[in-house]
């Protein structure tokens, strides 16, 4: 099976792409957008994501100091994001503590679901909607003061009826748009979060381009990112996987209790990775 290395992604000259983007999307580029040095690293450590940690530096500190956690999922926005951060200082504080950030974008969901915000079942429209979500997520990265060069960004696509071929095709088109647009320079790394079996995650491997990495939810309690139900072992093998191995449960660290999901990584985080050996690889 194919792998999808960062080297295979579409790249173009900065000046040419800036021109293309400026012409194609004249109203949505953020003025003053900056690009720093490559702003990611590979994490092989454990992490958490939790609405209860968003925008609360003290809680984030309690779950950093003397805990096993290296990474934190940060909801940066999207029409379905229940707990997005709008605080550049919160993001900056997380980075200062040492957290590796997994930026999550929670936009419209598959058309065959009952979620309030859904993308189109028309593949062309869904593709363009995926592009628009990517642009919006890029703008949010900038507004949060985050570097954008190769920054990983994860689209949260919840479970849907993958036996519905029309819905699956729309999802594939949407994710193709998401991925293509994030690859426009200054390119980001396109990730997709979802149920490893029920979000069509495995089928996006055949997209062109395929997502750069996946964040698969497989709540089997097994930390290894290699062990992910419904995902071929031959796909996303080059440090291209995060795994959410346990769903919402309460944990108490340093006297602070928060409901968290548990993650294990062998993939990109912002702004730097780690060399943890915690059973994730």
């Amino acid at each position: 099976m194919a792998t999808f290395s960062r080297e295979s992604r579409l790249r173009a000259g900065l000046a040419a792409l800036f021109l293309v983007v400026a012409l194609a999307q004249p109203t949505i580029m953020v003025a003053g957008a900056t690009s720093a040095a490559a702003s990611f690293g590979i994490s092989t450590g454990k992490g958490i994501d939790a609405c209860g940690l968003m925008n609360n530096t003290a809680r984030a500190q309690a779950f950093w100091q003397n805990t096993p956690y290296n990474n934190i999922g940060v909801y940066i926005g999207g029409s379905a994001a229940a707990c997005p951060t709008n605080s550049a200082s919160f993001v900056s504080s997380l980075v200062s503590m040492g957290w590796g950030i997994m930026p999550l974008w929670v936009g419209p969901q598959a058309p065959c679901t009952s979620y309030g915000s859904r993308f189109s079942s028309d593949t062309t429209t869904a593709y363009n909607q995926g592009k628009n979500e990517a642009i919006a997520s890029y703008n949010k990265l900038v507004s949060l003061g985050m570097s954008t060069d190769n920054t990983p960004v994860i689209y949260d696509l919840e479970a849907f009826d993958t036996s519905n071929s029309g819905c699956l095709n729309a999802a594939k088109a949407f994710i193709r748009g998401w991925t293509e647009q994030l690859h426009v320079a200054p390119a980001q790394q396109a990730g997709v979060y979802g149920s490893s079996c029920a979000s069509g995650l495995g089928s996006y491997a055949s997209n062109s381009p395929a997502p750069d990495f996946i964040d698969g939810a497989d709540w089997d309690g097994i930390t290894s990112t290699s062990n992910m139900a419904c995902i071929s072992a031959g796909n996303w093998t080059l440090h291209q996987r995060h795994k959410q191995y346990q769903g919402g449960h309460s944990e108490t660290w340093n006297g602070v209790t928060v409901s968290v999901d548990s993650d294990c990584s062998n993939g990109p985080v912002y702004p730097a990775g780690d060399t943890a050996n915690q059973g994730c690889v």
Partner: protein
Amino acid sequence: MKRLLASAVTGLIALALVTACGQRPDADAGAPAVTDTLTSAPLDAGLVTDRFGWVLSADAVLLTRDGGKTFQKTAVDVPAGSARAAYFTDATHGWVAALGGTGIAVARTADGGRSWTASTIPTKARIADLSVAFGDAKRGALVAREQTGGAFSVADLYATTDGGASWRAGTAPAAGRVAVDTAGRIWLAGGVFGNELYSSANSGGSWAKARLSLSDGGAPQAVSLPANGVVSVSVSEGDRSRVGLLTSTDNGVSWRETGAVRTATDTAVAPAVSVARDLSVAVADPAGGRLGRVAAADRSTAAATLKSVQGLPAGVSRIGMVGSAGWALASSGSCVGEKQDCVITHSLVATTDNGATWHELLRWVQKLA
């Protein structure tokens, strides 16, 4: 294929597969002379009378009939390693709900756990967690949380009026914990942030969202289910929390803060609160070592203070008082090194002196990294 939870072989398999990170309590862990009956982390526990109580883990149901001096594993016919919720209305009637391959398995007992009868609720949804409760021996509800990311809260509801022999599907407004009052009304506390409270008088056919009014006009961080007419909420106050105690004068349509206890640390989850039948309230501090006791007659919006107690651990998620006896279930993490040698210690502690001192009944140490 179903297996008996208490089977020794199954227990060993479950220990290896389900709780590969766990370790049994041993002398090195500093545990007192407790029973060795836990083979994975306890998920829930309840002290039903001053002598009868239960402890649930993924692969075991433990019962005590002597207040916790001894525990017996009971053979429950649900898939091994998949138990997620339990409930006892009294020392006789109990239920255990588990995730199954093709549905939700529910086992029920009417003889205090000596024998169990199983039923299955078919579902195609990918279920992540369960909550089950009964208002009496017949009327109950089960909430099945679907697997979603943290930004969503989706669940299915099932209700029974024949003690769990059959279940009828309803709707659930969110995922969370469920309760059934003596009138048969179903309560659900949950949502993305865990700060929503709903009730349904028609087995999940329709739901009403309760209005929660705090004394400072703020919003709760998390809310608990009603217990003996009291709803408790967590309210963040910076580096500590206030546990607001809310009561209703309109049959649960709205709830107003009529008392409070301030904790020493912050918490983002529903507070561990016990409301006894005499309406006295016990609140465990998330940081451990302190307990707030509020007598019904003393409840006021002026926050009561916590008092130091012996042996109450950090991270109490459940607390229940029956007279002067009580149980608390707690879990808290710690690391020896920087990002390494980390464990979560789960413990069940008990008191027989109205919460002044607590002693450990069970412990499970879960290795993380």
